[in-house]
């Protein structure tokens, strides 16, 4: 069996669930081992990824405008958005925590959205970045997904524990719902992307020449 041949060229398909190689008789079929329904490539992968990414971008805006957390001291509310929360950490001198929060709730979601858009573009046009690098980039995007939920969990824990009625209490703000939706949408976007599409284009280009 010739190495470095693609499964699609041999009319084989790899089950995304159990990784068994199946011979493709239909466009969509059930895996002979785990009975999972699959096709050679994730169907409408690019469309789904693009749609989820767009939805995430839309959610990113209200997530940053509306407050994440409302801090009540003696009945007086003090609202803070994601960036205001980070700024207050820097003022208090908690630099490592400010960095972690900034990374998890601002850089990672934004980086994921931009990275997915770059990968989407690269499946359509040949890019000079090596395919291996792009696959690694996809891996990074997929594995960073859950970490963006950090801020949501922080607010949930703080709201539950700092609950002294009139004296001091913390409540979640409207922004947190948008933020959670954004994180979930980016995870869906990363899940629906098929990295094998990145390798398909290389083959097409070498065949053309």
């Amino acid at each position: 069996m010739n190495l470095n041949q693609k499964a699609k060229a041999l009319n084989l398909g790899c089950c995304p669930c159990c990784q068994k190689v199946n011979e493709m008789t239909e466009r969509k079929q059930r895996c002979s081992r785990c009975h999972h329904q699959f096709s050679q490539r994730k169907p409408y992968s690019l469309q789904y990824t693009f749609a989820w990414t767009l939805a995430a971008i839309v959610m990113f805006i209200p997530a940053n405008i509306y407050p994440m957390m409302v801090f009540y001291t003696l009945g007086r509310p003090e609202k803070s958005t994601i960036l205001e929360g980070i700024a207050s950490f820097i003022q208090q001198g908690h630099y490592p925590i400010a960095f972690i929060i900034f990374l998890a709730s601002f850089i990672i979601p934004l980086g994921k959205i931009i990275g997915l858009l770059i990968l989407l573009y690269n499946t359509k046009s040949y890019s000079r970045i090596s395919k291996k690098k792009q696959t690694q980039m996809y891996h990074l995007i997929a594995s960073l997904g859950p970490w963006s939920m950090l801020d949501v969990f922080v607010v949930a824990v703080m709201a539950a524990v700092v609950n002294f009625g009139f004296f001091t209490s913390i409540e979640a703000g409207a922004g947190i719902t948008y933020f959670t939706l954004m994180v979930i949408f980016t995870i869906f976007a990363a899940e629906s992307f098929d990295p094998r599409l990145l390798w398909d284009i290389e083959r097409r280009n070498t065949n053309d020449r």
Partner: protein
Amino acid sequence: MNHLNDINTLIACKHCDTVANSPTLTAGESALCPCCGYTLFSRKVDPVNRTLAVSLAGLLLLIPTVTLPIIGVGVAGKYNDATLIDCIMLMINADFYIIAFSVFLFTIAIPSVRIFSAFYLSYRIKTKQLSTSLLTFYRSYHLFDSWTMIHVFFLGVIVSMYKLISLDELIVGSGLVSMLLLLFCSTLISITLDQKLIWDLLEHELEPKS
């Protein structure tokens, strides 16, 4: 039909679609894709017994993690602590249903399903009772791969402790300790569980009947 006989010895990379002959590995080795370098599969050392032990521990740890207080704070003589359930109930009371639902899903429901399916699978393999229902269990294990967030929740608790350090009193609850151990167990499961072995076993056992 040489081609059809061959198909069981082939393996395709999930990430670049390269087909390769499946190598025979000894315990502890991994097969890498010749094209993109991603791990195709790996053979684990003593997978069934180790997974059984670790997932049983994980299942037992789930109970204290959910019911015991994670952290407690005291302000001006008043004391308040919160469990994981309290976090969710408070979010429901404040009408943040999406948050409550996702916290429940990502920190309680999905980790429990994964740990339970790892336990159930290794128990049934150990006692040699294989049936088609195991396929469903194992598929559910794979489905939720990127949706467990105990590790993120743990870091979230650490960050909120940093935020609350200016208060009079801050107590680390026993729930946090068992959450750390649970995190340890669920990470160990993904290390000890031999995915290819289980699929091969299931295929081998279930094939003649169907």
